[in-house]
């Protein structure tokens, strides 16, 4: 039953480079419409998971199933997933409009259809006035919106985010956070979100997967991580997060007499 209910199921997934085990036989499931954050220090294997899920890497062992179907051998384009990278990876020589409609032109739609779909998405992410500009003229937050619109264009039911906000300033992060959640609700997409920012993970996620050195420590809702941490590592991790919150709160109180 569990397999049938889940959008994505990962079984015994591992990735080994020569002597180095980056991902060590992990299994987990992602529910339909869920927002799952993968949280962990750099080098814990979280980016590797993402690249394996979307098919940019080949796993050493393991099976990936989407809607119950084995997609381990599928090409990235056949998986119906989108990915948003940290540094946007936009096509610098094309306008915002062309960036979003570029891939559509390879998927049977007519040019007019492609332009129409792209226009709708650009309006949706609030960049209508900037549609004729090239990425170099946009701010980091605006560029990331273009990247999101470009990903949405092919209507993937799973969207992967690889630390999409780490290059952005605090204000932009907060706005974009809300917008990503809005888009998720609106499109009913399943989202897998990589971050090393605990605050972000706690604020956005239905569930959080805490990782270290290629292994999963715990998967659970933010509340579960706080109330029933699986081990010392998670406890320290969560405690740290709470401490940061407490500190910023106390600073806030001190500043405001």
């Amino acid at each position, binding site marked *: 039953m569990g397999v049938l209910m889940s959008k994505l199921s990962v079984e015994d997934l591992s990735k080994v480079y020569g002597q180095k085990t980056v991902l060590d036989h992990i299994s987990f499931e992602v529910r339909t419409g869920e927002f799952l954050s993968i949280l962990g220090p750099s080098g814990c294997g979280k980016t590797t998971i993402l690249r394996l899920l*979307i*098919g*940019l*890497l*080949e796993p050493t062992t393991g099976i990936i199933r989407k809607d119950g179907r084995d997609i381990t051998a599928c*090409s*990235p*384009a056949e998986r119906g*997933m*989108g*990915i948003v*990278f940290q*540094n*946007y*990876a*936009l*096509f*610098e*020589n*094309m306008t915002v409009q062309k960036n979003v409609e*570029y*891939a559509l032109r*390879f*998927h049977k739609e007519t040019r007019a259809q492609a332009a129409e779909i792209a226009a709708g998405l650009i309006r949706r992410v609030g960049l209508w006035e900037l549609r004729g500009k*090239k990425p*170099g003229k946009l701010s980091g937050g605006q560029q990331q919106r273009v990247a999101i619109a*470009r990903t949405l264009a*092919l209507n993937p039911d799973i969207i992967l985010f690889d630390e999409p906000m780490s290059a952005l300033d605090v204000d932009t992060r907060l706005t974009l956070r809300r917008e990503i959640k809005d888009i998720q609700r609106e499109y009913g997409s399943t989202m897998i979100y990589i971050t090393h920012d605990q605050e972000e993970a706690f604020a956005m996620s239905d569930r959080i997967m805490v990782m270290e050195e290629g292994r999963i420590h715990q998967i659970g809702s933010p509340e579960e991580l706080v109330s029933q941490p699986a081990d010392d590592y998670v406890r320290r991790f969560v405690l740290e997060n709470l401490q940061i919150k407490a500190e910023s709160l106390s600073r806030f109180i001190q500043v405001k007499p």
Partner: protein
Amino acid sequence: MRKRPISSSLLKLTLLVFFAVAVLLPLLRMLAYMGSTDILKVLSGAGFRKAALNSLKVGLLTTAESIPLAYALAWSITRTHLRFRGLWSVLFSLPMLIPSISQGSGLIILFGANGVLTRLLHLGGNIYGLHGIVIGEAMYVTPIAFLMFSDVLAYEDYTPYEAAQVLGIPKLRQFCAITLPFLRRPMISAVFAVFSLTVTDYGVPLTIGGKVKTLPVLMYEDVIGLLDFGKGSVIGAVLLIPAVLAFLADLCNRDSGGNSFVVRQFVIQENRLRDSLACALCAAVGIFMLLPVAAFGVLSFITNYPVDMTFTLDNIAKTLRMSGGTYLANSLLISVSAGLLGVFIATVTAYCSTRLVSPVSRLLHLFSITSMAIPGLVLGLSYVLFFKSSFLYGTIAILVLVNMIHFFASSYLMLYNTFGKFNEHLEAVGLTLGVSRLRIVWDVILPQCRGTMLEAFSYFFVNSMITISAVSFLANSVTKPVALLIPQYEAQSFLECSAFISLLILCSSLLMKAAVHLLKDAIAKQK
């Protein structure tokens, strides 16, 4: 990348084989050829030892002269309020558009026994010999060092100087603590490059050296005059040493560098005296660099210098009668072909080594820049020995190939740097969107490389137009490029015609440079 297509490995393998055949095997062939020669006898010969000593002297003196001069010029352009900076830069790079041999003949026209300035200023006309070679070589290499320095200085960060000012550190200490360490790497690269270029050049000493022979001249005479390939390859191997040293110095310097983005631009204080001195220096050097060009311009249209100074077009007619036009066409064909082929192979290779990363890409990268460590004369002799019995020998094609290889490294590095700057995920994004790698390359990456590709093409073209080193052993009376007419006419005392050829080459290079400049401007406007 998932399931790396076999085609990419196959492509890299093909390129490796190409470089092995076009660079490594010919070189090994030349080194192997030494086996049949009494190396010790060559090395201990009086002629060789004298030439080696001369080469060393020329190398050291030229380096000592041109490095400070080039630095002073670059400093004047980047660190003062000098006006018309663009104009000065163009003027200083003018010598890079003519063959090194033209520098020598230019000096003879000006300062030779019957030189223009010799007669005008009643000088001794004593330009022949070691000091003439050093002046000529300095004119040949100073522009190159100038370009290296002005590039480096333009990207120096001002922040450390500001911090030093805040801390009240005196200027001299600032120079020792900030400027010198910053300059160390580029200085090492420039010194080695200049030394190696000077020591391996034969154009200048051939024309102006008189009785003073350097190693490249000796090698040229042994191979061309005496057909003594054995002795030639021993000298070639010796010439390989400075070039390989320069290559290694540059390699060590380059790999650990690379953070060349400006954090804060230099703030240049007001200083009238400094600006005037800089202006005087630039004017003096600029005029001196312009002199040979002016001399070619004048001499080309004079009946019989210095006897009959009337204006004439006879020299042009005479050059054309001696098939000058055909040889110019040869040169243009060779240069355009080397440019097109070179840009194509450099683009594919640079793409493979930057964006299809695997253990093989490092090797490919190394293979692509090895040609930098091979002086033109050595490459030419290697090609003669390796391809002598192949169908390529004696054709225009082998001249195209040798030029392409000779000038490959710099063009390749331009593209390598450009490709490296692109976002690493572009192709991955394409794959997840169902767009193939090739499509992304064609639609996204190449359109953004047009400027660099033009620049690389112009580099191949200009250098193929002006080179006389690698091609000198490979060309015959049919395939000969026009630059080789200069030593020939000098030998036949057709000074006016030789001047006209230099002028022709300069005009071709200038036209190409101007065209590329305009095209790049047009591309920049599109952005």
